[in-house]
């Protein structure tokens, strides 16, 4: 079994050593440095999630990925996620196909909503239309990925008639995933359209997603498609010890969740809920390399998944703390997970 391990960021605005926020521009330059360092540390994938907020100033992750591509040679680069519903599938394909060209075939894309909704009013979309927007645009994106002229007609963008969309890829479609939270119908849709499945598990017990993994493979079979990989995306933070990782992560986690809770429907974390989430049955990977590696291995096995992306960083954590996280993840966590799964 081949496992791949990634790091995802939302461009979480860095703090300095005194807790003062760095500029958006400096945070973005730091993300470039983190992506380059991730390759040096032996990480397989680096993903950037689209956000449009003061604390996640990352609306154009593909531009940042292009800068990382120019300074790396091996690491795969992609979105995590692209908010496809409020974007144009043709433009998304063009941007990631261009990234694929720049990087010599290292591009990927993960499509979804995340829990990110700020792009809807920003670009003039109605959240109530979310389902129709995503269904249509994901269907079109699957057509675009095949290469060759596209003919398409729908309600959410202008029709395409035998349209050649450039740049062409050199060796077929680049990997494309759909990020799924808790909706089994989204799992079936990913299978129907031929996307790989990225399970976004940001709270509660990861074990409850095992049925989704089985559902995905059975649905692929039903639609006459070959098996496709299942991945897991979850937040976390690695430091030298469990205590240090929790001490660095907890106040930032509490603050950011409290900030976004009203619009995203998260419960405000308490120390009790944080202990549960960082414990063996929760969704957060916060701790020493050994603790985090053990939890990743357990959950990949339980979910039949072959890919794990750690969403690292939080608003207010320092660039140095993130670099240490990346170093420990690459040099210690990943080799240890591979060992545990072999």
């Amino acid at each position, binding site marked *: 079994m081949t496992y791949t391990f990634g790091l995802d960021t939302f461009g979480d605005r860095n703090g300095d050593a005194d807790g003062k926020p760095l500029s958006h521009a400096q945070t973005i330059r730091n993300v470039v440095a983190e992506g380059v360092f991730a390759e040096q540390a032996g990480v397989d994938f680096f993903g950037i999630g689209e956000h449009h907020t003061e604390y996640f100033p990352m609306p154009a992750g593909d531009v940042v990925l292009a800068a990382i591509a120019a300074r790396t040679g091996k690491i795969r680069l992609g979105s995590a996620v692209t908010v496809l519903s409020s974007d144009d599938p043709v433009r998304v394909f063009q941007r990631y196909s261009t990234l694929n060209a720049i990087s010599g075939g290292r591009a990927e894309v993960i499509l979804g909503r995340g829990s990110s909704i700020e792009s809807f009013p920003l670009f003039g979309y109605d959240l109530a239309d979310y*389902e129709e927007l995503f269904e249509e645009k994901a269907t079109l994106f699957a057509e675009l990925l095949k290469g060759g002229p596209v003919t398409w007609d729908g309600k959410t963008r202008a029709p395409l008639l035998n349209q050649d969309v450039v740049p062409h890829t050199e060796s077929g479609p680049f990997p494309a995933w759909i990020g799924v939270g808790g909706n089994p119908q989204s799992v079936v849709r990913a299978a129907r359209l031929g996307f790989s499945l990225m399970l976004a598990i940001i709270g509660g017990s990861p074990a409850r997603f095992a049925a989704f993994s089985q559902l995905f493979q059975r649905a692929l079979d039903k639609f006459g498609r070959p098996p496709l990989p299942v991945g897991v995306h979850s937040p976390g933070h690695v430091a030298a010890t469990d205590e240090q990782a929790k001490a660095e992560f907890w106040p930032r986690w509490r603050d950011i969740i409290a900030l976004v809770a009203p619009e995203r429907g998260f419960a405000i974390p308490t120390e009790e809920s944080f202990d549960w989430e960082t414990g063996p049955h929760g969704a957060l990977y916060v701790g020493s390399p050994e603790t985090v590696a053990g939890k990743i291995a357990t959950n990949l096995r339980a979910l039949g998944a072959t890919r794990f992306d750690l969403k690292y960083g939080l608003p207010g954590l320092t660039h140095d703390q993130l670099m240490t996280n990346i170093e420990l993840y690459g040099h210690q966590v990943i080799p240890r997970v591979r060992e545990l799964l072999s």
Partner: protein
Amino acid sequence: MAEPSRLAVLGAGHVGPVIARLAVKAGYPVAIATSGDPDDIALITELVIPGAQPRWASDAVADADIVVLAIPLHRFADVDPGLLSGRLVVDAMNYWPASDGVLEAFEDGGSSEIVARRLSGSAVVKALNHIGYHELEARARPAGAPDRRAAGVAGDDPAAVAAVAGLVDRIGYDPVRLGNLRAGRVLQPGGPVFGAVLALPEFERAAGQDTRSLA
């Protein structure tokens, strides 16, 4: 209760399957339905809600003692009130404009009161809407467990509220009867217990304070 009530869960998205699974586990006969063909959710039901029956919505409702509405609120306008007439309906939906967009019909007042006005032939009870779908199963505990949590039940029909309180109890939460649907506003997004998974005393304290402020 000698014979367990039969449940129809309408909605197979984030919330419906979780409630259906809890009900199956508690021993209820459960049917699950969407607005479409049950064949479309046969695989989902087999793997994600084993023990439940995928059915057409009209068939599921016709045989049900309790109907759980677990669809996105913006799809509620598509539901035929006649289908639910004479039924006990659990409203597990939420009006949550920041997350789901603005719905003019729900801008003013409690969402379940507005639902109940449209379903005038049904006994509407607000419940199972305020604990996140990602936590609802993990936090469920049998009666008497020391770490059991509470869940609110609100409605204008006392017999319906009692029946739903029984359901909530059997799937794993201490039911807290809040009085009428208006009092159930404390369970809505922005209310004091929405998103929180509280033990009974904390729940009563949080909900009670807000009930008084509404009076």
